[in-house]
């Protein structure tokens, strides 16, 4: 079996060193050499990242160099020699490249028998060990430049701390994929797997894909005016460089007047023309909103493809930046199906899996299907060993009294501004009491919340449905519950109501507005099922 390996960059270089040879020949031989092996690992050269990754890192890091360069240029501005400026720029660029090169030479990673080790740092050396057992998911990301050079960034997540716990930026894409397969195999205990075993049936039909039409529709639903906030932010950052004061409305009027538009002339325009102008502005706003939604969505979701591999879910997506993430199916703790009042009319839902791993900075869960019909979603849920609530499951409504105190509490809090405004300003109580109109939307909000809240329990799973604008159905397997807490505040205590909080790895599920007795009954039922099974037994890959 070793004969077939030399073409693999990882395995072949491992084979050269004694410890890795042992590791490839199975557990039994590696056990004998355990003591020596750990010593040899230190002498093991390990692997370097790919050298062209330096350039990718350098180019993507260029924006960070703008400020040092500007600072340096300002520093020599006063000197009479203008040649200094380009020289300074070149020096800064070279210094950055040199530092990156130093870091690169000091970076090594080892693919061990039980863990991946990463050694890094120029002066402060860090050696990090990531046991295979603890790796939640492995993702490969290709940003545009890296993609052009055939490189990928490998990220390992263990669920501890924030974001990825280790990343290798960058390695050759083929190596990245091999590395991931290797991790996957080691994790499931296959120590002496050959590459042929690892080569997966990549062309098996995906369980969910989105074509460009679907992505486009999804984009339309992702209407967003955030671009204006971004532009405003950018303008604020760089207003020193703008030829006028961005925030001064008079400057804008001045600019308009230079072009022959005056306030008087605007006032002269007749009503219909104003309406037309207003409509044009509105349409413009809508177009910008829809376009930015479509563009953002397309950049992220283009070519979305979800595969159910032997061990887990593999998701590939992205237009310019490609990401390729694998999450083991047994790591799924709960499923969240989300929709909204508008998209629901067309039957569009999204599906996320809750696990310890975080998808990215803004998505804390693994997005399995961002925009799909329920008919497409349930099979994916089933692939994660969770089930849709069947017809026998009766959903319980929350007790209405639960939401009422919230309303009165808000009314009480509003007393503050009402009274203080009446005392400290000229306004009368009758005027300041208008603040209480705020309670009207709040009442609607609470009413919607109450109306949409449902929870249920069957023999194996928990179900919680809530929300109006973001309608969520959370499905969790009871044996994956970590802790259960009955909580009562001062008011709910008098009402005899309680909430029931289930701690799961990667999230919290909360049942609300339960009579205390019901809460206790559910708690006991769930705990009996939970305590019967050890958690590490559940999370072991089968």
């Amino acid at each position: 079996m070793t004969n077939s390996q030399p073409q693999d960059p990882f395995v072949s270089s491992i084979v050269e060193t004694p410890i890795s040879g042992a590791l490839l020949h199975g557990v039994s031989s590696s056990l004998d050499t355990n003591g020596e092996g750990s010593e040899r690992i230190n002498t093991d050269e390990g692997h370097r990242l790919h050298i062209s990754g330096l350039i990718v890192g350098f180019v993507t890091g260029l924006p960070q160099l703008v400020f040092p360069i500007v600072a340096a240029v300002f520093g020599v501005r006063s000197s009479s020699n203008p040649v200094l400026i380009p020289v300074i720029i070149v020096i800064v660029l070279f210094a950055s490249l040199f530092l990156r090169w130093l870091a690169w030479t000091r970076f090594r990673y080892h693919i061990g028998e039980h863990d991946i080790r990463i050694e890094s740092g120029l002066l402060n050396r860090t050696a990090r060990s990531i046991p295979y057992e603890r790796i939640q998911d492995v993702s490969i990301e290709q940003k545009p430049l890296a993609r052009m050079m055939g490189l990928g960034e490998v990220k390992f997540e263990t669920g501890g701390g924030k974001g990825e716990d280790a990343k290798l930026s960058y390695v050759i894409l083929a190596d990245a994929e091999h590395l991931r397969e290797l991790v996957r195999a080691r994790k499931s205990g296959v120590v002496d797997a050959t590459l042929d075993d690892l080569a997966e049936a990549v062309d098996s039909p995906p369980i969910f894909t989105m074509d460009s039409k679907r992505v486009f529709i999804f984009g339309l639903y992702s209407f967003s005016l955030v671009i204006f906030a971004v532009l405003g932010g950018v303008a604020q950052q760089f207003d020193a460089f703008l030829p006028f004061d961005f925030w001064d409305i008079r400057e804008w009027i001045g600019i308009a007047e230079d072009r022959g538009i005056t306030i008087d002339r605007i006032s002269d325009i007749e009503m219909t023309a104003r309406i037309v102008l207003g409509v044009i502005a509105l349409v413009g706003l809508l177009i910008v909103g829809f376009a930015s939604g479509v563009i953002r969505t397309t950049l992220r979701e283009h070519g979305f493809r979800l595969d159910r591999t032997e061990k887990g879910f593999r998701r590939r997506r992205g237009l310019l930046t490609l990401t390729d993430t694998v999450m083991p199916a047994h790591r799924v703790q709960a499923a969240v199906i989300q929709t909204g009042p508008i998209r629901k009319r067309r039957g569009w839902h999204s599906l996320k899996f809750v696990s310890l791993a975080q998808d990215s900075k803004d998505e804390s869960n693994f997005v399995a299907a961002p925009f799909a019909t329920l008919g497409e979603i349930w099979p994916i849920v089933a692939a994660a060993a969770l089930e849709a609530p069947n017809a026998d499951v009766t959903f319980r409504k929350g007790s209405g009294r639960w939401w009422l105190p919230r309303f009165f509490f808000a009314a009480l809090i509003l007393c503050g501004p009402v009274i203080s405004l009446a005392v400290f300003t000229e306004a009368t109580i009758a005027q300041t009491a208008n603040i209480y109109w705020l309670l009207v939307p709040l009442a609607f909000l609470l009413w919607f919340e109450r109306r949409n809240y449902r929870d249920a329990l069957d023999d194996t799973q928990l179900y919680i449905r809530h929300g109006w604008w973001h309608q969520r159905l959370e499905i969790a397997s009871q044996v994956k519950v970590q802790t259960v807490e009955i909580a009562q505040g001062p008011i709910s205590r008098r009402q005899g109501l309680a909430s029931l909080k289930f701690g799961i790895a990667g999230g919290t599920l909360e049942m609300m507005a339960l009579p205390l007795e019901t809460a206790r009954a559910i708690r006991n039922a769930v705990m009996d099922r939970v305590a019967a099974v050890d958690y590490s037994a559940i999370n072991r890959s089968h």
Partner: protein
Amino acid sequence: MTDDTAPELTPLNPAYVTTTRISSALGLLPLLIGAGVLEASQLVPPGSFIVPALILYGLVAFAVPKRKYRRWGYDMGSDRLRIVRGYMFYRDTVVPFGRIQHIDVDQGPIDRRYGLATLTVHTAGNHNSTVALPGLLHADALAMRETIRAAIRQDVL
């Protein structure tokens, strides 16, 4: 409202009242000093800072710990640990042994003086990922840790 399962709960060690009194008395000392300083500056009628501060201090440092103590309780089951606490904000938490990742027994300087310790269990959950049970005799805490550890090992085997 009475807790129908209350009798089965084990109360904490009574010395917990003393340790909480000492630690909150020490913790609130800056408040008292601040009030004393403001009082000494004689900006306002005498007693308007120091009197409420003393009352608050007395309440928090002496009356509250006793009440808090009465609301705490725990129950070591054969396969789970139950911890009940709080009156205004009542919390009743159950942690199955099979979900516990690791266990800490902590002892601060005040605790050590009275032979007490805090048992903290860690789970992988996001909510209540650490559940602490203070006011145990140090020996009891160690015994509980051993029990939980034995239960975990048994489960795995």
